[in-house]
């Protein structure tokens, strides 16, 4: 019976490539692949040819040359004699710093705004509506520039502190149009032990919360998690601080010369970029959170209320864990957006990787192609890492199908 449906063997003709459905799909794929290879080849050969016509070659040797320019915000040792490669790393770290801090702040803002937008209080929900619509409907670049302009135009000049017109806030924080100076920590002898105590108490908090959750699941008894956590956070470290003879001191900024002596300078470019990125992305996250919460049927809330759970507990124990399944995947793409949007940093002179490697280095060495390729590779890697972590978390919260 089956022999009748088998193709006749040995009778392959060339026209079958086009007219026989079994071969046609392969033909189309081969042709498409050929065209793709041709297109890539054309682009590459064109690039090589044009580079040759310009008398340029393709190499990354410039990364080892001295950069000769200064970078204001550096998380690692760097001066103008360091290499272009090191300047690129300084920029990358600055990008990562703003991306991480931005993601944290945007998440906090977004969750608060998203939950409050669902509030029954008319004013609160409308205020959050204004925030969300205002921020997500105006280009990010405008927010960055606007916040930077407001900060640098409205705050006092550092000289105003020196001349005594303005006093440092609490004697330790100076907000000026050149940046904000805050006290710098000075790690004295024994501060490692202090740090160890702090890390240990963090671990203890984590352990206690885990224990409390298990106990609640098993017995239904609720432990005072918040107060114990707060106590664990503050008390051991505080006791250790005094027992070790106050190893950690603060270096306060003092008005001197053009600006201040001592302390740490948080630049206005950083503040503006961080605020703008967090507020902008926070508005999108607020909508994601709101959507996630609304996706949970109202019956869940009613059931929780019927069991006697208070609204706060209902949100934390019933609604949010389920909403996370809806929230996390789009949240990851917001993190990616924020990271990539941080490349607008140059608008306010924040020295991220786009400004060092993709800006000054390219400009001083004329290696556009190499620099841009490296830059693209960096953003790709960073995005993939963030997405990877996000997906790991998503796996842990997603619906467990058993």
């Amino acid at each position, binding site marked *: 019976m089956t022999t009748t449906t088998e193709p006749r063997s040995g009778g392959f003709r060339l026209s079958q490539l086009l007219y026989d459905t079994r071969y046609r799909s392969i033909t189309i794929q081969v042709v498409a692949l050929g065209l793709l290879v041709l297109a890539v080849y*054309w682009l590459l050969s*064109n690039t090589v*040819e*044009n580079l040759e*016509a*310009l*008398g*340029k070659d393709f190499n990354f040797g410039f990364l080892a040359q001295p950069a*000769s*320019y*200064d*970078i*204001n915000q550096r998380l690692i040792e760097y*001066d*103008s*004699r360091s290499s272009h490669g090191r300047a690129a790393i300084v920029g990358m770290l600055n990008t990562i710093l703003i991306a991480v801090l931005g993601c944290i702040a945007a998440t906090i803002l977004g969750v608060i705004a998203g939950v409050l937008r669902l509030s029954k209080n008319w004013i609160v929900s409308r205020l959050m509506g204004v925030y969300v619509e205002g921020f997500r409907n105006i280009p990010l670049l405008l927010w960055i520039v606007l916040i930077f302009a407001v900060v*640098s*135009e409205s705050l006092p*000049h550092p000289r105003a502190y020196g001349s005594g017109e303005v006093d440092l806030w609490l004697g330790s924080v100076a907000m000026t*149009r*050149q940046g904000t100076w805050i006290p710098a920590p000075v790690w004295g002898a024994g501060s490692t032990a202090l740090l160890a105590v702090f890390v240990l108490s963090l671990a203890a908090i984590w352990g206690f919360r885990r224990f409390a959750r298990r106990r609640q699941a098993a017995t239904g008894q609720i432990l005072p998690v918040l107060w114990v956590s707060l106590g664990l956070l503050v008390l051991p470290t505080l006791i250790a601080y005094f027992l070790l003879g106050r190893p950690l001191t603060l270096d306060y900024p003092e008005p*001197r*010369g*053009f*600006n201040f002596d001592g302390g740490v*300078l948080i630049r*206005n470019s950083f503040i503006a970029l961080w605020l703008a990125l967090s507020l902008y992305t926070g508005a999108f996250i607020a909508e994601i959170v709101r959507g996630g919460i609304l996706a949970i049927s109202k019956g869940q809330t009613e059931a929780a209320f019927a069991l006697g759970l208070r609204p706060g507990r209902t949100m934390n124990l019933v609604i949010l864990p389920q909403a996370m399944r809806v929230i996390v995947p789009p949240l990851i793409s917001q993190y990616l957006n924020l990271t990539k949007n941080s490349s607008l940093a*140059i*608008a306010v*002179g924040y*020295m991220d990787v786009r*400004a060092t490697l993709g*800006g*000054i280095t390219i*400009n*001083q*060495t*004329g290696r*556009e192609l190499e620099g841009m390729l490296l830059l693209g590779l960096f953003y790709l890697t960073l995005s993939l890492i963030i997405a990877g972590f996000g997906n790991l978390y998503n796996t842990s919260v997603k619906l467990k199908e058993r």
Partner: protein
Amino acid sequence: MNKTVIYGALTIAGLAAGSAAAATLDDIKARGTLNCGVNTGLTGFAAADANGVWDGFDVALCRAVAAAVLNDATAVEFIPLTSQTRFTALASGEIDMLSRNTTWTFTRDVDLAFEFTGINYYDGQGFIVPRELGVASALELDGASVCIETGTTTELNLADFFRVNNMNYEPVPIATNGEALEQYGAGACDVYTTDASALAAARATFEDPSAHVILPEIVSKEPLGPVVRHGDNQWGDIVRWTLNALIAAEELGITSANVAQLAADGTDNPEINRLLGVEGDFGAMLGLDNDWAVRVISTGGNYGELFERHIGESTPIGLARGLNAQWTDGGLLYAPPFR
């Protein structure tokens, strides 16, 4: 189906045509305009007025080249470029020449594969500070925050100057001259540093110029000049000798007022005759006609006239000739002979 094939063929043909390079001079003639890269806005050197008409010392050079090549000083498409975008624009062929207070350096000339076709302004890097700071020397700037245009030689000189003098500073990188002035005006930085000529131009735009001091130190050599791409020597020669014609005209006493008459009547001085095309065929050697230099000079006058009109002592910018005087007057301007 047929249409798709045609579109595809058209695309490929278009892409292929784009990669074929022709001589710059032929391109400009075919296009009818000269694409000239200029500063995004630097009073006296390159700035658009209320009607959108570009004017200035660097702009005048573009106009002179357009007059030589196209017989029309207004046939220029001005493309404002930041210090970061200028070289890419030139290398990619978006502009034919760059006349944007660009410093002639070894790497730009050799490694970036550009050709500097002369020097139209001998400059040096200076510092401007508000008078109320009471700073009298750049050596007193330890700890100051300094606004700089990124992607410039200024940025590198600044790093060297502070390192060599063992001083600290806080660099505030900014994309354009205009933004830098805004920041400096708002007090977001204590000092603005760039070429001394640009500082003078900047001070002229301040509400109260006397409230700002340009410090006496000049910390670098900044020979500014027009730039073209490597590889088209004829085009490079045209730009180079247009600038030389402007400089030589001043030395030889040819002005916008007398150039027409000198060209018509001829003179006893053979060099003037050669320059103005009365004798010889220097224009043809450049691939132009013999009146090219007459048009160049009658556009806005010779180098001295351009200097006086745009940035000289009678203007708000008020720059003295200094190094930019003719060699006969103790300056560095020295056009090779038209021979």
